[in-house]
Structures are given as C-alpha cells and as structure tokens.
C-alpha cells in the first residue's frame, strides 16, 4: 500500500473538536482576534510529552464566504501557544459531505482546506463517510451513506474527487450509526460497503472504534459479538484508529465524545492493532479537561490504558 507522504512511524495523538465562540474551542480575545481558549491551550501544551500528533476538527466559522485567511488568527494561535511541540498535525473535516448523492460543490472548500494544509503542514485530512447536509440544510449529526449500489457509486465519486483535489492524503472514516436517528437506506452491510469504497478508490481509512461498535450494536450484537466481522473491513488500508468516549444507557449506544472509553473500545483497539498492518496513528478524540487544562478524573483511566497500549504498540 502506498501511504504517500504520510508518516511511517507509529504515532499516538489527540483530536480536538474546536467549536467557535465557546470554550473549549476558539474564542474571541479582547483585541477581537480569534484564539484557542485557555483550557485547550493548557491541556494540549501540558500533554505534549504524552501525545505525538494533534488534529483539529474544522468547522465553518460563520456565514461569510469561505476564506482561509479568516481562520489564520485562530489556527496560528493554537499552534504557537498550545501545540508548538507537536510536529505532526492533521485536520478533521466536517463539510466534505462524502456520502452525498446530490450535486455538492466542494471547490471553495478544497481551496480553503489546501491553504490550511500549506500553512500548517497538515499531514493528512480525515473525514467521515457521511451525509452532513441535505439540499443546503445542516443536519444535527452526520447520517451514514446510502448503503446501496447508487450510494456506493456516489461515495466513490465523491471520495475520488476529494483525493484528487486535496493537497494532503484523505483518510476516509467509517461513519457512526446513532440508534434511533440514523436512517439506513439500503441493505449493504456497512463493513462491506466501506471495504468496497476503499477498494475502488484506493483511499486510506480511519476506523473509529465507537462508530464500528455503534453499527454492530444497531445490528443487535452484544458482548464479544460486537467485535465480530472486522475482517470484512479494509484492514490493510487502515492508517488511523480513533477512540472517543462512548456509553451504553438504557440499552442504547451513545457516541458521546466525553473521553471515557468503554472496555469494548479498548478490546477492539487491541484487535485492530493486531489486524491492521499499516496503521500509523492512534488518536484519542475529544478528551474532557478542566479549566486549568488537567484531564478530568473520569477520563484518567481511559488515557492511562491508551498510553499503555500505545507504548506497547510503538515498541512492537
């Protein structure tokens, strides 16, 4: 597998959702510049000896025309003040709408993203294979792609286009399946669909443990069966594994992004690390921290277990 210019050595990192206008995220300073909130800066800088890489989740800032320069203040501040010691940086997109069937003009998004890639030397761009909007209407959460032949054809076209247009490798992420709110069109098994997509596009992929478990949960799997079927995934194309906090409440699976991992996520991580020969990055997504940047106590055990696994993986 050609991993292009992406890194070759194992990397354990952190991924951060960065909403605009509230902490933790990007906020407006007294001089009206956009800056990283103090808690984010303290957490990221304070864990530079724990994490090798960092990714930021890109979100539209406002309703102005897309212009990368509007993001420079915030990103400059983040990388100068919070992450100067992180040599490996990546971007998580949220607007490429890779599962869309309808025409969707991404040209301005590509231009903006490429300007950010160039300025901040992002080594890869990650994006869920989801439907983020419909006919210009935002959705509260990305829906899974249309799991049918037409949906696969559209997704292959979208991903191929994005791979060509972006100035960094695109990692396509297996999408989440929220019970009760993920409308599933089509009868493809989502693992087979994702495998076919990776095969036809040649894309590198991200496997999110919460997203994989959410799909199996939705299909009725419980216990050890939640880890079944991973051989149906494009394991040899997996470059990155994501872990964000999940929970099961009243028989529902929730991808909460609260930093507290389920035992099943760690078990799945172990399985994936054994099965994915080209994985290079393991990313802890959206840990929760206090105002002074210290990790919330309820996340401590999750991070400790991840660090142990990352160290063993790095040695291997």
């Amino acid at each position: 597998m050609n991993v292009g210019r992406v890194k070759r050595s194992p990397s354990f990192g952190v991924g951060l959702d960065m909403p605009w206008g509230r902490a933790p995220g990007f906020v407006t300073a007294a001089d009206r510049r956009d800056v990283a909130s103090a808690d984010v800066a303290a957490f990221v800088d304070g864990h530079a000896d724990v994490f090798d890489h960092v990714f930021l989740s890109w979100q539209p800032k406002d309703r102005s025309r897309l212009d990368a320069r509007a993001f420079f203040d915030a990103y400059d501040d983040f990388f100068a003040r919070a992450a100067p010691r992180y040599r490996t940086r990546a971007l998580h997109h949220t607007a490429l709408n890779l599962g869309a069937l309808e025409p969707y003009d991404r040209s301005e998004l590509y231009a903006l993203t490429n300007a950010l890639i160039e300025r901040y030397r992002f080594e890869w761009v990650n994006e869920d294979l989801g439907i983020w909007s419909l006919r210009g209407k935002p959705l509260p959460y990305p829906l899974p792609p249309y799991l049918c032949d037409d949906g696969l054809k559209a997704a292959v076209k979208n991903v191929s286009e994005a791979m060509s247009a972006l100035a960094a490798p695109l990692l396509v992420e297996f999408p989440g399946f929220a019970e009760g709110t993920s409308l599933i069109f089509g009868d493809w098994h989502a693992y087979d669909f994702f495998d076919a997509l990776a095969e036809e596009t040649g894309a590198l992929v991200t496997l999110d443990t919460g997203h994989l478990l959410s799909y199996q949960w939705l299909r009725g799997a419980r216990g050890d069966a939640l880890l079944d079927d991973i051989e149906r995934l494009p394991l040899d194309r997996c470059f990155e594994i994501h872990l964000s906090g999940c929970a099961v409440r009243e028989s529902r699976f929730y991808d909460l992004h609260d930093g507290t991992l389920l035992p099943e996520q760690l078990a799945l991580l172990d399985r994936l690390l054994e099965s994915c020969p080209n994985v290079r990055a393991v990313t802890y997504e959206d840990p929760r921290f206090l105002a002074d940047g210290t990790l919330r106590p309820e996340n401590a055990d999750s991070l400790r277990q991840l660090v142990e696994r990352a160290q063993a993986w790095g040695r291997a």
Partner: protein
Amino acid sequence: VTLDEALYALLFKRSARDALARGDASRFGAAAPFVASLCLDELEESARAATTEILLRSQRGCGSIANAFARTIAAWKASTGSSLDALAEAFAESAPFDAWNALPTCSGGPCVEEAFFDFLESVGAGTPSTREAEYAVAVLRALLCEPAPTFRLPRLVLRRGEDYVVPLSNGRAFVATRGDKIVVGELSARRTIEGAPPLLH
C-alpha cells in the same frame, strides 16, 4: 424521486412522513423500496431532531432563531397550544424553508432569519409590529457579524453608506452601524436595543 430527495422529504416534510405512515410509499418513486423499510418511530425522532435543531442552532454573534424571535414564537405557542417542535415542523414544511441554504457553499439565498420571518408572516404568527422588530434586529445582527455574507441582502434592508437600515411599517426604523462598537438601535436614537445580548465581535 432520488434517494436524497426522498431523505430530504422524510426528514423535513410532515406530509411525506404522513404518507409513509399511511402505507403510501409510491410517492417516493424509485426510492420507494428503500423508504418502505424505514422504522417510522426512528424517522419521527430523526425528523424532530433535524427540524428543531434549526431553530435552536446558534449562529456565531447572532444567537439562535428561537432567541431572536422569542416574543413572536411565544405568541404563536400561546395561540395554538403547540410546541417549539411543532413550529419547527411547520417551518420546515414551508416554501421559505426550501428557499434557504445554510451552507457556505450554497450562497446567494436568504438567510435563515429572513426565511423564518417570511414563514411567520405567512402564518400570521404574533403581532406584525413585534414580528417586524424582531426580524429587523435579527437580520441587522446577521449582516454585521458577517464581513462577506453568503446570503443575499434581506429584502427589507437598505444600505445607507456604511449603515444598514430596516424601515418598519409604523414609520420607525432600525439601523446597524459598524464602528468601534456594533450598535443596533432605532434610527433616531442610535441606541442599543434594551435587553439585547452583546454581539461577539
């Protein structure tokens, strides 16, 4: 009917969901076999989340539609005995909703504040004076928060040099001026509207 057209209709149009609940999947054409297998309860939950979120979603510097039109929404709820979910559903069913594009890549249409105002006008929600005043403040804030807005200039807004002005039907007007501080106020007094939250600039 394509799959995305069917999904759009099912998420945002009560009429489409009602048709499916009646067993009438034929209106979805080629998408009918896919639509027929959907769980109606999950569909309702998804639709409620998608539509109500549009009224609750905060725009940076402007707040949410629910806050911007709080008095008109309260009046509509009181007169109809209905919930915010029902209002969101009615808005989503309307033509002004279809005309609105939220995304940066879908430029040139009305902003959500204008689309919602047009909907409120069409159903006669609240009083005309309150509706108009809430609209004026909402669209002026939206304009001042966006250096290069992707939405069109709202149709009741006039440019006066650097100012944006919304004349009201009662002869008053609201004005927005960009300066050291952003001020949204009555044209004659140039004062900040009482009780309005600060803009995030």
